């Protein structure tokens, strides 16, 4: 109540985080490499493709110093294939991009979305990355002339968004007070949009089932005191093995 913002990130915050993703640009002007706090940026030599963070790519694009190469999953035929997958499969979302194999050395860090090159020209064409909606919208807005068919891409993105949000809402009907909802492959913006609703539903279901939950806890405690193995522990073990 005291905080003006709901829990979780707001859409502008997610878009801000998304600007860290690398995209491929084709520079039109030379630029020396930049030493920034976030790391070193490669020098730009005109006809050579270079990966740059989205924020810098958008800035250069607006100043007409570079062209952005849209990631392969933003091509109309890949989007059509993903949309077909989404509409034909009733359950689950289209899978996220496969993670690259971990480096053998033990010091290597595990990869996670902002540090994966999931939106450069070399990204996988058949999977939507974590920030698909934000990158798609921002590129269409700032660099629509770099797309071959911006209008059909825009239409496909809109369609994908509708289908996936409908699935997220339908998933709620399968929820139980102590159950979960499968969110594999759901993007950051979709999580943000669905968060308030899904958590609200779970909170209320828990409130309704609170007496049953209390009963189960009491029973488990009695069982433990009597020396029987508690059923709750069994559940935990199963969860870990899955």
């Amino acid at each position: 109540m005291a905080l003006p913002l709901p829990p979780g990130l707001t859409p502008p915050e997610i878009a801000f985080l998304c600007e860290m993703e690398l995209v491929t640009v084709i520079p039109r002007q030379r630029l020396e490499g930049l030493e920034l706090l976030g790391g070193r940026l490669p020098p730009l030599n005109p006809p050579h493709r270079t990966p740059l963070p989205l924020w810098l790519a958008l800035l250069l694009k607006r100043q007409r110093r570079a062209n952005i190469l849209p990631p392969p999953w933003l091509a109309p035929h890949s989007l059509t294939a993903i949309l077909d997958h989404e509409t034909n499969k009733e359950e689950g979302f289209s899978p996220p991009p496969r993670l690259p194999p971990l480096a053998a050395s033990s010091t290597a860090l595990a990869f996670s979305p902002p540090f994966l090159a999931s939106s450069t020209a070399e990204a996988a064409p058949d999977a939507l990355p974590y920030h698909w909606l934000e990158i798609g919208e921002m590129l269409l807005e700032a660099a629509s002339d770099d797309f071959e068919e911006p209008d059909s891409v825009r239409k496909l993105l809109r369609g994908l968004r509708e289908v996936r949000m409908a699935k997220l809402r339908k998933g709620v009907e399968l929820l139980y007070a102590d159950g979960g909802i499968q969110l594999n492959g759901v993007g950051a913006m979709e999580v943000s949009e669905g968060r308030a609703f899904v958590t609200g539903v779970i909170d209320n279901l828990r409130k309704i089932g609170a007496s049953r939950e209390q009963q189960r806890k009491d029973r488990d405690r009695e069982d433990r005191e009597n020396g029987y193995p508690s059923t709750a522990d069994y559940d935990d073990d199963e969860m870990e093995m899955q």
Partner: protein
Amino acid sequence: MGSYYDVDAILTDAQKVPCTFELTVPGLGYIEGNMSGDVKQGSKVELPLWLGEMLALSQSLNTSSLVTLDPPSALAPRVLNALKADPKTVDLRALAPHFYNLGARILDLWDEEEMIEVLSDTFKARAAVIADQAHNPRGALGEGADFMRGLDENERQLFRAAHDSAKAVRAWMADIKKK
């Protein structure tokens, strides 16, 4: 459940439940509108949940409690059957403004496995419709108006939450177009 200052919890506690007095209480006639008389044994009175609960659970007099609580009319078998038949057409707000909270409180007092099932299924089925209405800009005014009027307080909060997050994403999309 809920904090001391939670207005919704206070309002839930203020909802009336039917109680039957098991004993004759002298001088308490004013709660059934009889200013100077006594409350007779066996008389039925509608008391707020907090008062009824306290009287029903207090067992100082020879282990027999002062009143017995009856399930409120909002959770009568007739209503539960209607919810089982079609959760979407029941006007929960007319039954009780805090329908689910009342149900949760009642379930604390009685063990009713079936009521938990019915209420959970009702909530889930209605939540799906609420989500659809929240994403449909004309839903709340047009064809969905009757349904929206029948939402209880928790469902209204859910609608608001879903509506606000959808609005925030739309606002962001409109925002990047301005730059």
